[in-house]
């Protein structure tokens, strides 16, 4: 069985986001790039599956659509435990472009389980996995909060729309992961960092479908007025204010 994890390269979640002088681009200088938190958890789960099901998983491939500066993040994924890495050399402007590149790759190099994250922490498009599924013709499992292997079948835990389900389904699948898929992201061990030196990282040229959407400008959040403070001793006032002034209750 082969597992692929799609990895998005995003700024560290604590990064202060500001635009450059043109106002049309995010100022990326000094940004620390990380594995998208969801993808990092997906990778962690993929590695756990490989460890728990000895001999069942032949390899874990991480796939990223990104310019060359994404490679450090891919090498971290290798150090954490992926077996090889693919970078498709494109800077996607929207989810469609990313999904298109991924679909072309998987058409050529199929995998049994493909993990995608519920969203990426940069554009929060939440669309790549769903589009990939339709483009690649592979069943889509949204809201995946757990995955287990049992005799060639995949047991998927799904939480969606207030329902919690346990499903048995056979690969190939695209698993769109969310909270619960793994608890803490794996930290690379020295052994892994060493091993990553010789693991293959292949760069593929893009198919370039062209994006459907494009960010043309950024706008900072409108300034927020200071909070209205209510004395602790007068806490009941809050309910009154929420009723009469804010009119939310």
């Amino acid at each position: 069985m082969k597992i692929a994890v799609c990895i998005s390269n995003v700024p560290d979640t604590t990064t202060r986001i500001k635009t450059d002088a043109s106002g049309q681009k995010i100022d990326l200088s000094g940004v620390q790039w990380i594995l998208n938190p969801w993808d990092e958890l997906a990778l962690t789960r993929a590695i756990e599956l490989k460890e728990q099901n000895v001999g069942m998983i032949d390899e874990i491939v991480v796939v990223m659509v990104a310019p060359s500066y994404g490679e450090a993040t891919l090498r971290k994924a290798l150090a954490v435990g992926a077996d090889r890495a693919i970078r498709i050399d494109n800077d996607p402007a929207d989810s469609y472009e990313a999904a298109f590149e991924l679909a072309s790759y998987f058409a050529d190099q199929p995998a049994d389980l493909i993990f995608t994250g519920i969203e990426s922490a940069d554009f929060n498009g939440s669309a790549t996995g769903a589009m990939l599924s339709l483009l690649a013709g592979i069943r889509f499992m949204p809201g995946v909060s757990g995955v287990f292997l049992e005799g060639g079948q995949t047991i998927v835990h799904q939480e969606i729309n207030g329902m919690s389900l346990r499903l048995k389904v056979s690969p190939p699948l695209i698993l769109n992961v969310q909270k619960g898929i793994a608890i803490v992201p794996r930290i690379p061990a020295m052994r892994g960092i060493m091993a990553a030196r010789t693991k293959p990282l292949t760069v593929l040229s893009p198919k370039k479908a062209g994006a459907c959407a494009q960010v043309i400008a950024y706008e900072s959040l409108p300034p927020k007025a200071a909070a209205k403070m209510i004395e602790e001793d007068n806490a009941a006032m809050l309910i009154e204010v929420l009723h009469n002034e804010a009119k939310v209750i």
Partner: protein
Amino acid sequence: MKTFVFTTTRDNKVPRSFFEALTYGGSLEGSEIIALVAGPLSQDQETEMQKFGRGQIFHFNQALPQWYDTFYYLHLIQSFFDEKGEPDLVVLGASEINQVLGPQIALKLSAGYVARVISLPIQQAPWRVKRYAYSGKIISHVELKTEKAVFLLSANVLSPIELGAGNFELWNALPAKGEGVEVLEIKRPESKQLLTEARIIVSGGRGMRGPEYWKPLEELAEALGGATACSRPVSDEGWRPHHEHVGQTGKIVAPDLYIACGISGAIQHLAGISGSRVIVAINKDPEAPIFQAAHYGIVGDVHKVLPVLVEAARRLK
């Protein structure tokens, strides 16, 4: 311009996000609404539908699959398009199901897709809309290169306006189910209200001190008719079920009122609540960053403040 709006029902009800989408679609120039509601509805819901409705609303009145079968929904929508014609614009209210369907409908229509739209379009040709990026840290203006568009709205973008101009009728199709999935177990751990659709949320952080102190928080939620939520460490430590976890790595919520009790307001938590209309912070630390995000604040001990609020809220009702 033909504008398609879609929702599934839950507990025989239409979510508010559907009316938000109808209102949004109806506010656009030259827009003609054609909507599809999938799933059973209770009687009173039909009157709701008359009240907030617009254009033509079709009701597919059949029980929906137990599990979230994307094949089923896509097939249903495709049949609808086959019969009624393809729309030019699709407006989807914020829901977990629409979040999955949106991108796929966009592909089917060769339309551009924008998720979490936060305002009416700046421009209609070419489409230009605003949305949050970087987990709510900045607003981006997105322009589509396609003629057609699919917009998934953020919750609370606008309030549904009563128009009562809807025409509501039944529509049927032969459903097709996705094969090869065996449902082993189904649970409904969440309360009746979905966190992502709740209008009022009372949320607790580590400042609550432990699961045994949650009672007044639950009572306040109940008195206000709201849902309960929590910060990540609270669910990590098992004080609260994990579906209550709000934030960047949990649920993104956008209620009218979010009351944060003993939550410091870390950037990752704020990323999940920034769409809330009114944020209230109760925290004993006046320097807690949550006060920067809040509209109303009380510097004080949650254990003292919550019981007072519960009483006041009960009096109000």
